[in-house]
C-alpha cells in the first residue's frame, strides 16, 4: 500500500519559493497544458536567443507538486539549447525534485509537456518566419 504522499524538501522549497513565475510579454514561444477542470493548468513562456532559452517563465494553477514542477522545469530549461531542453524528460524533473509521490507523478509530466509545447510553438513560428522570408 502507498501511504499518502509527502513532499520532499526540494519540492517544498520550490513550492514555497518558485523560480521564474510570470509571463513574458513578447515571448518567442508559449505552451499551455492541462485545464482547470482537471485541477492543473500550466502556461510556459520562453525567449530564445542564439538557439538557447534565454528566458523561461510560467504561470501555474494547481497543487503543490504542479507549482514545484513548473519552477524546477523553468530552472532546468533556463540557458539550455533547444535540443537540450527538448531532452528534459518527466523523469528528470521528478529526479531533480528528489522524487514525487506516486499520485503526483502526472504533475511532472505536465511540466515537461508545457515546456516542450512552448518550444514547439517557437519552432513552428520560426518555420512560418522562414517560409515568409525564405
Amino acid at each position, binding site marked *: 500500500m502507498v501511504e499518502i504522499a509527502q513532499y520532499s524538501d526540494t519540492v517544498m522549497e520550490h513550492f514555497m519559493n518558485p523560480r521564474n513565475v510570470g509571463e513574458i510579454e513578447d515571448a518567442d514561444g508559449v505552451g499551455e497544458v492541462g485545464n482547470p*477542470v482537471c485541477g492543473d493548468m500550466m502556461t510556459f513562456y520562453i525567449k530564445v536567443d542564439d538557439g538557447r532559452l534565454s528566458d523561461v517563465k510560467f504561470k*501555474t*494553477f*494547481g497543487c*503543490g507538486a*504542479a507549482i514545484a514542477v513548473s519552477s524546477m522545469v523553468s530552472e532546468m530549461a533556463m540557458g539550455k539549447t533547444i535540443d537540450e531542453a527538448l531532452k528534459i524528460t518527466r523523469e528528470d524533473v521528478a529526479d531533480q525534485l528528489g522524487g514525487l509521490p506516486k499520485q503526483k507523478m502526472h504533475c511532472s509530466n505536465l511540466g515537461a509537456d508545457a515546456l516542450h509545447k512552448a518550444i514547439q510553438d517557437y519552432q513552428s513560428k520560426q518555420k512560418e518566419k522562414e517560409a515568409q522570408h525564405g
Partner: protein
Amino acid sequence: MAEVYLDHYAATPVLAEVADAMRPYLTEDFGNPSSLHQRGDTAREALYAAREQVAALIGAQPEEITFVSGGTEANNTAVKGVSWAARRKGNHLVVSSVEHFSVLNAARTMAKFDFEMTEVGVDDYGMVDPEDVRAAIRDDTVLVSVMAANGEIGTVQRTADIAAVAREKGVPFHTDAVAAAGYIPLNVTDLGVDAMSIASDLLYGPKGAGALWVRKGLRLMPLLDGGIQEDGRRGGTENMPGIVGMGKAAELAARDLASRAEGLTALRDRLIKGLMETIPRLRLTGHPSTRLPWNASFLVEFIEGESMLLFLDQKGISVSSGSACTSRALKGSHVLTACDVPAELASGSILFSLGLENTPEDIDYVLESLPPIVERLRQMSPLYAKYLKEGGG
C-alpha cells in the same frame, strides 16, 4: 510559530476528561464484559453506562445502541444490514447525492447485488427537498438514508420533514448524524427517524468508536458475525477504552451542547464575515444560515486547494480541502459536484472546521494569513491572469 488547528472535521483531540475516563480500561480494568468474574462485572457495568450516555445524547433507549468501530461501520451496518434483512420485501434504496462515502458506497455495493439505488439530488446549498425523497420512494424501497448534516459544506438537512415522508410511505429512515451529533439538538423521537449513526471522534472522543442506534423492531443483518455481543447485532470483543471514551464524550457533548454551539457559531461567523470582506471572488459553500456551528467552507476562485493548504500549514494553520489533489481519489468532491459547482471552482475548495479550543485570536490570525496567500497564488495562476485580461477584478 502560531498553531491554529482548524481541521476538526478530520480529527479532534480527546478531551482530558475523556482520556482520564478511558485510561483505567486499558490497564487495571481491562476485563471483557462477557466474562463471568469480577473483572467481567466491572467491564459490563462500564459498557452499560456508556450505552446510557450515548443514548442520552440522542434521546434513545440504551438497549437500542450498538457500539461499532466508527461512523463508517455504523453507516455500512445501517445501509447493508437493513437492506439484506429486508431483501425479501424489496430491493430499492434511496440516498441523497451528498451522503458521506460510507453511505453512498455502501449503497453502491448493494447495487452490485440485486439492489437498485436512487440518488436524490440537492439544491445549490446542498439541501435535499423532502418532496424529492417522496418522489424517489417506490413500492420496493426498503431504506431511505439522508444525512442530518453534511460536514464538508455544513448544510443541515430538514431531517424531521424527510423522516415524515419516509414514515408516511412506511419506509425505514436512517440518518447519518456523524457530522451533526453534539452540535445540533438531535432527538430520535422528535425527528421520527428509525436509525442514526454517530461517531466518537467528532465529539472529542477517541477514534475507533461509533454507535448505530436502531429503533426496536427494525431488522438488521449484522455486518460482523461472531459472538453474541451487542445483543447479536455486532460480534467482536468490545473496544472498552474506546466505548468508555465515547460514552464520556457523548455525556459532555450533551451537557455542553448549547454553549458549544453558541461559541462555535460566533467564531464561524467571524471567520465567514472576515474572509468574505477581504478576499474577492470568494464563495461560501453550503447553506448560508442552516449550517453546522463548526463549519466554514469556501471556494476560492482561480486557485487550487492543496497549494493553499500547504502555505497555511507553513503558517501553522491546519485546514482541509475537498480538492482532488488533497485526496488520493484524483476526483474532486462529489458533494460540491452535487451542489452544481463547476469542476475548476471545486478545485479551490477550503474547509475550516472549528473546534472547542479555538479562540477569536485564531480566527484573526487566519484573517491576516490567508488573503496574502490567496493573492500570491493568484499571481501565479494563468486563470487569474485570463480573468484580469478579460476585464475582471
